[in-house]
């Protein structure tokens, strides 16, 4: 029974982190703790407790954004494994965050390992493509890509669930508090990379002023994303109108 549970959680952690169809993955990923609360609640036979735990941990991540592939924290580990560990310890839902958050930071390592090693398969795919071997390309994309994540996500999650709190404590014990602080700082810094990559990709110099306007509106006047998006639509249309070539006539 415990093995089955371990299998389910480990599979979810791994699949949602990297393997399952992108679209499903996204909802299951950005809402990982919430979903985990439901699933673990069902598996452990205490649905209401599960939902509580899941919702509570979820709140800490409601504003998380993954931009340009930069994760400030790994939600899959934090969600699926974190919420399970909380419930296994019969801890108060509010304690869930203290368990999930360090796991999320450790997850940054797993995610980056994948991002760093996957180019191996890309280079193979280059070769297959040159040969016109589309099956090879697909195989690299779908299967080879899962080797690293399986090791970094599935295995630890499986062992944690199987051997329970002692194993997790051992795992976290190996990792001193200082490392968690470091990973937390890295998690706070990492979005800068994603955002900078995005900026780098928007290579029109003429739109840089809007970056400054958005920054001031958010930093000084505390406008949120919805307000910025509305203003963005407005300014975007005007920008288009003002920079479009005269010849085409006015709207």
């Amino acid at each position, binding site marked *: 029974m415990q093995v089955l549970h371990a299998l389910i959680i480990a599979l979810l952690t791994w699949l949602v982190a990297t393997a399952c169809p992108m679209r499903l993955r996204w909802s299951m990923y*950005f809402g990982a703790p919430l979903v985990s*609360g439901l699933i673990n609640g069902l598996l452990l036979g205490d649905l209401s407790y599960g939902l509580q735990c899941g919702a509570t941990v979820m709140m800490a991540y409601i504003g998380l954004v993954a931009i340009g592939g930069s994760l400030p924290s790994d939600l899959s580990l934090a969600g699926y494994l974190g919420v399970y560990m909380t419930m296994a310890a019969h801890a108060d839902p509010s304690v869930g965050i203290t368990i999930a958050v360090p796991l999320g930071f450790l997850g940054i390592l797993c995610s980056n390992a994948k991002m760093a090693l996957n180019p191996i398969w890309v280079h193979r795919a280059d070769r297959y493509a040159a040969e016109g071997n589309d099956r090879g*390309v697909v195989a690299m994309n779908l299967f080879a890509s899962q080797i690293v994540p399986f090791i970094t996500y599935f295995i630890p999650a499986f062992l944690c669930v199987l051997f329970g709190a002692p194993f997790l404590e051992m795992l976290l014990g190996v990792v001193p508090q200082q490392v968690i602080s470091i990973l937390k700082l890295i998690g706070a810094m990492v979005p800068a*990379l994603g955002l900078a990559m995005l900026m780098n990709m928007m290579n029109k110099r003429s739109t840089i002023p809007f970056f400054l306007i958005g920054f001031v509106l958010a930093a000084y006047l505390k406008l949120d*994303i919805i307000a910025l998006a509305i203003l963005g639509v407005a300014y*975007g249309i005007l920008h288009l109108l003002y920079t479009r070539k005269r010849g085409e006539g006015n709207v």
Partner: protein
Amino acid sequence: MSEPTTAVETRVTLDKKTLRKSWWNWTCWGQICYNFERMMGQGFCHSMIPIFKKLYPNDKEKRAQGMTRHLTYYNTENTWGCLIPGIVAAMEEEKANGADVEDEAISNIKTALMGPIAGVGDAVTQGIVKVLLLTIGIDLAMKGNALGPIFYVLGFSAYALLVGYTCYMTGYKLGKNAVVKILSGGLIQEITEGFGAMGMMVLGGLVATKIGVSTPLSFALGEKVTEVQALLDQIMPALLPLALFFGVYALLRKGITPMKVMLLIFIAGTVFSLLGILA
């Protein structure tokens, strides 16, 4: 054009089924081999494979060229980003039918659009839709209602599928109708200008709010303790995030790979954390 009779004979059109397959590949496997070197490049190539099979059923060489053409660096938001493979599918179709579509034009479109669409898409998908759905989902779950997570997963999936599918097909139509316009640069120009402005605006806001770096430094001379962070806030809110952002951006501009920048962030994070300079 000058020889319509022969052209008509050999013309290959992408049918709905092929387009759907291409969209499906993208929407399922676009990010599965995500990596620092090409990001979603391999996924994009995967989504083009059905297209090439249809366009060049008997020409392995052309298929090979096509796949290689789309194994390049590519990254965008997944939902609204479906617009781009849609447009590209139309361009590949034209190319296969003999139109004068250069490889460069195709790659230009991808490069021009991926940034602005990522900016807009991230803002809408992650910044607005996700947050709204989560708010409701959490609210329900908090009250012990199992529909909370279910509502969220279904809602978000429905959003992603609907918007994604519509964008792909819209992109294809746009590409078909406007292929000439696109080639002449007018449309890309407009889309990148307009979306770019909006994306940049949101990006500025994200830099101000989503990079959570601050300094725990403080210095005491005599009895008074001064928090350095308070001093910085007086100068400008979110100063450290802005500085970090521009630092990283400068590195990328210099051609340092994202992989190396990530490594640098790990090193810098470790050092600054141990020295107690940042938190």
